[in-house]
């Protein structure tokens, strides 16, 4: 007698959009519940905490502005990462590419001597090139020598951090900064306009939104995008079809690094107006963008939403710090939890459980 089985587990070929959405939301909710335990441990009702966060990050003018401001670099980096991830290039180096973009922008702003009207465009171009360069090094190493991309991009992050530190402590330390480790303030022609009293540097925001759309079109509608997808989904088929994995790898990192570079330009030209300590230029935007891109299932358009979501989380972190006196580090706990639940939930999506009474 064959045993009765109540349910079967089958592999699901490709999860539908609905399933993905549902599982993702469940993952986030699960993370919220677990994080809620921390709030309780601090004597704060979890519900009240989340209410405050939502109200603080979305319900007030200030909060909304902060949310958007945080979302801008996440958007740019995230879109770039979706492209890289599509080709299975694990770009953990967005943080470093962002910093290189910031360095290039600072260099142009302070030392290029260009006429005012050319400064900002030159800064953006320089930022793109610098970020792309930083990303192309690991790309070339992988494409040509087969060297692991996770490690190289990660190492490049640290080299970038020390580069910035060297610059602000040494050759680029601003003479007017009285010995403090900052560059001089950028000339005002080199600073980005912001929406009235907020800190939303809208040119970068518009750039990010436009690039999200363009990236989507690239992936879906162009030949290059097709090649990128094939390389990522079926490298053997790609080789068979004569698609150059070499060129594709370089292309995706040119884009991904360049976009992260844009984010760096935005931060120093829009928020800080000088080059400063690397940990103040980027609050782990490059790493958070990985989650942003992951959650968006590598769809550049969806990154617009996920980057906003993480903007809410970061702005929410500020809220809990200011209003509840809770440590900002809770944001890290939160991000870690969401990430774990997300990747844990992947398995739910890959397998389908069907209930039936059947003899096997």
């Amino acid at each position, binding site marked *: 007698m064959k045993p009765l089985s109540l349910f079967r587990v089958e592999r699901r070929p490709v999860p539908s959009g609905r399933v993905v959405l549902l599982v993702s939301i469940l993952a986030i909710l699960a993370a919220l519940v677990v994080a809620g335990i921390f709030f309780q441990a601090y004597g704060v009702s979890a519900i009240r905490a989340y209410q405050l966060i939502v109200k603080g990050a979305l319900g007030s003018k200030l909060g909304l502005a902060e949310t958007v401001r945080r979302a801008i670099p996440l958007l740019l980096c995230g879109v770039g990462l979706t492209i890289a991830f599509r080709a299975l290039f694990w770009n953990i180096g967005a943080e470093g590419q962002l910093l290189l973009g910031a360095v290039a922008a600072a260099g142009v702003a302070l030392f290029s001597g260009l006429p005012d009207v050319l400064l900002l465009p030159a800064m953006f171009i320089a930022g793109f090139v610098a970020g792309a360069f930083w990303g192309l090094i690991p790309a070339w190493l992988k494409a040509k020598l087969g060297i692991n991309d996770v490690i190289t991009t990660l*190492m490049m992050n640290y080299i970038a951090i020390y580069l910035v530190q060297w610059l602000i402590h040494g050759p680029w330390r601003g003479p007017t900064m009285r010995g403090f480790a900052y560059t001089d303030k950028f000339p005002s022609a080199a600073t980005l306009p912001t929406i009235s009293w907020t800190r939303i540097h809208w040119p970068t925001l518009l750039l990010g939104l436009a690039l999200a759309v363009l990236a989507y079109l690239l992936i879906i509608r162009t030949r290059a995008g097709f090649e990128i997808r094939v390389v990522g989904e079926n490298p053997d088929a790609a080789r068979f079809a004569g698609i150059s994995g070499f060129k594709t790898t370089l292309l995706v990192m040119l884009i991904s690094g360049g976009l992260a570079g844009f984010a760096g330009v935005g931060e120093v030209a829009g928020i800080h107006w000088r080059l400063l300590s690397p940990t103040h230029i980027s609050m782990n935007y490059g790493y958070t963008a990985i989650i942003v891109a992951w959650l968006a299932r590598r769809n550049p358009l969806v990154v617009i939403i996920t980057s906003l979501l993480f903007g809410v989380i970061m702005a929410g972190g500020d809220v809990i710090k200011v209003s509840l006196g809770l440590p900002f580090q809770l944001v890290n706990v939160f991000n*870690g939890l969401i990430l*774990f639940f997300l990747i844990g939930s992947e398995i739910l999506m890959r397998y389908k459980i069907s209930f039936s009474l059947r003899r096997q």
Partner: protein
Amino acid sequence: MGWETWIIATLSRTLAYGTPLLLGTLGEIYTERSGVLNLGVEGMMIMGAYAGFSTAYTTGSPWLGIMVAALVGGAFSLIHAFASITLKANQVVSGLALTMLGLGLSGVLGRSWGGKPLPVPISKITAPGLSKIPFLGPILFEGQNLIVYLSILLVVVMWYILYRTRIGITIRSVGENPATADSLGINVNRVRYLCVLVGGILAGVAGGYLSVAYRPAWTEGMTAGMGWIVIALTIFAFWNPAIGMLGAYLFAALYHLSFRLQPWVTPEFLKAMPYAFAIVVLIAVSRGTLQKRMGAPAALTLPYTRGEE
């Protein structure tokens, strides 16, 4: 200052600062040799630092602190093991999440522990007779502690296990070719779990060492990126415990020298060295045959499922 005193001072500091690097690297070597990439070393280390300190502070026993640090590091690593081995999730993402979680959790929990002096730290050892041995004496036997010695012993043990025992062959085959290992009856996932656990325990001890022996005190974020250096060192070591020891001590020496030589050498240059070196090493072994002998385990970051190769 004569040459001799220079070298003695440098090597003495190298041992002190290099021990957490060494412990972390040994652990990550085993983890990666079995085919699992664990980028969560920083998170495990700092959790170990916090757990070690708080335990040592409240119980008055620093060794209990180290043990708890080991347990906490191990427990943390199991999260990553579960996610990447059983759930076959992406190892890169899982490791990053672990780091975030560790940094965040230790920052939240450790808030009120900052700045407190540890009443009973791990005692420094000065062996009366041995410390008189010229040259080696002052380096090895003056002012170091038991964990430093244990870590050196550990290098020998772990090297031996990896290269001269059946267990070592098992680990290495699981990392190079899990399908073959599986067909030989080896439980691939179990081996991987154990190796990840070893990595977690050692990372926890490394963190505990920092807060209970080295400093001894707790400060938020006190590992300051040591976990990432460990990841770089693992590569630099060609996944070999003996070279790992050389690498850990080399970088500890560079760190010390970045202060000692500050009047003459830009410190940022020396600090960026470990990371640049790791890339150089990877380039150096990328040539075909060298790759096979000294390169990364072939199955690194690839989850294994029977029948799905």
